[in-house]
């Protein structure tokens, strides 16, 4: 793979998409399709989660099959904050990010000692541990999960309205993408990508390879935690199902379909997968078969993902 460089049309397109997003709730309301505001919010949240995995996987070259653990940790952190009486997202969201990031720091510090397949499996193992811990934690709802008493407030504004939550998710996603874009071009991002390309060489040049990777892993975990906190607000529940390994698999699938290592890979992938799901559900009860066949087609015929069909990178 080559280093990330934004295409010239990326900035105008991003701004255009942002404007479209701002207009979406009123447009949907005008057509009487308010139901889809919730769906669009879901897409944004999963775009955020998939983008955080893209930082780890695409830019850091670490194939983590346990990313859903950080999503779940964020969701639970938000729900627990609310239980403790903190109903302000400006406090609860950073707390969720902190908890998930700290968790990722610990998992990464142990997992990054291994390489390749072993790394995939040890991240999976940690996610499974977290899953079983939450399932058996009765004070946090066990199997049923921890429900929220309504949505939080953001800087005093209630997120109870679907459009309000949509705007919050859109704003946070835009901030995160801005951050990831700058990061990918900054010295940190360059070093991270160079480590992905040739670890031995970077080690020989004296870069602290382990530390760079660990920071990226923890950062990815923290942003996934933010997505989890948003998701808990959307669904009104921090569920242990969020931590299931199939959820980690779904996030991976999103990044791979979207395009590994392309800034918008996670966003494109989340949108494509969720839109596919939503439209296939209406066609047949057994839509998983069609989805599976489509995924196989992507692997066999578009191995670099959808974003790669459009984007260019310097060789």
């Amino acid at each position, binding site marked *: 793979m080559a280093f990330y460089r934004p295409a010239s049309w990326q900035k105008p397109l991003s701004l255009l998409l942002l404007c479209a997003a701002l207009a979406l709730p009123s447009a949907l309301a005008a057509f009487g399709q308010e139901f889809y505001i919730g769906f669009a919010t879901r897409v944004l949240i999963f775009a955020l989660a998939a983008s955080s995995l893209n930082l780890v996987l695409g830019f850091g070259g670490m194939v983590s099959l346990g990313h859903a653990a950080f999503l779940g940790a964020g969701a639970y952190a938000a729900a627990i904050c609310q239980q403790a009486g903190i109903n302000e997202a400006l406090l609860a969201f950073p707390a969720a990010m902190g908890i998930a990031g700290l968790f990722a720091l610990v998992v990464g510090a142990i997992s990054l000692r291994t390489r390749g*397949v072993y790394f995939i499996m040890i991240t999976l193992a940690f996610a499974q541990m977290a899953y*079983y811990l939450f399932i058996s934690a009765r004070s946090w709802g066990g199997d049923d999960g921890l429900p929220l008493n309504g949505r939080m407030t953001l800087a005093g504004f209630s997120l109870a309205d679907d459009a309000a939550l949509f705007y919050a998710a859109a704003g946070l996603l835009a901030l995160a993408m801005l951050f990831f874009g700058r990061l990918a071009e900054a010295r940190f991002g360059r070093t991270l990508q160079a480590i992905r390309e040739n670890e031995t060489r970077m080690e020989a040049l004296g870069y602290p390879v382990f530390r760079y990777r660990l920071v990226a892993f923890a950062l990815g975990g923290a942003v996934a935690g933010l997505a989890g906190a948003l998701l808990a607000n959307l669904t009104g529940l921090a569920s242990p199902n969020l931590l299931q390994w199939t959820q980690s698999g779904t996030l991976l699938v999103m990044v791979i379909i979207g395009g590994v290592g392309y800034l918008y890979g996670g966003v494109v992938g989340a949108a494509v997968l969720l839109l596919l799901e939503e439209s296939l559900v209406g066609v047949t009860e057994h839509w998983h078969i069609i989805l599976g066949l489509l995924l196989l087609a992507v692997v066999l015929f578009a191995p670099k993902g959808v974003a790669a069909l459009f984007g260019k990178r310097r060789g």
Partner: protein
Amino acid sequence: MFQLILEQALNGLQFGLMLFLLAAGLTLVFGIMDCINLAHGSLYMVGAYFVAAATQAADSFWIGLAVGVAGAAILGLLLELALFRRLYQRDHLSQVLATFALILIANETVRAIWGPAALMLNPPEALAGPVEIGDFFYPAYRLLIIAFGIAIAGLLYLLVAKSRVGMWVRAGAANREMTEALGINVRGLFTAVFVFGAALCALAGGLLGPLLAVQVGMGESVLILAFVVIIIGGIGSIRGALVGSLIVGTVDTLGRALLPTLLRATLPADAASTLGPALASILIYLLMAGILFFKPQGLFPARA
């Protein structure tokens, strides 16, 4: 207390041997072809369904088992020729995506054909009752599974360690290019190993069928366990898979049976009732993380 421990140890042995049937195929596919097959658990599920359906049709468990295993082997052959061949040369990410897609397809196809409810599979009638050893009772069917598992493990050991094909397999796991350069038909070998792995999956699924429910999603939980086994044992090593299976089977079974009791004896009842089940279900993952921390290549690395 002693009887409980003995019974649970036998259960652990039985579970470990069945895990070995799954892990053996997985570790070979993984070790030789460097291919992550998340759909290995789906072969186990489909195999169990084949056995259950064939048993119902033939009204005999043994005929059903044979037909089901043969069916899964044929399915494995078709999958290898149509899909996996194209995946061996690809990176791990593509393999994860493709086999994840296979899981979706397999689960939904099974649900479409057999419905969402679990299928019942009865053990052969002669083995339905318990066996009495002194004043210790143990289900005859479980004993049979243990015997079956030991026999297959022994057979597999002879096949891999003593036969010419086994030598090729081990050579392929240690150094694929060199094996090819020596004129071994690695492609054919891959197909054979994959089909064999699929048959072992179906065998495990069919044998465990009467003990567990045959249902959609049964493959996923067992897949994770099989992965834990081969990581602990070292990828590509049959011996590692055997040791890993027995460790995981025993630790998991004994942990679930004894940990809550042990904790209740040492901790306040309140803490014990929360901690017990949690600790029991994460025990093997803790074990795996611990082993990887000290031996990042597993206990018996194939590429030493």
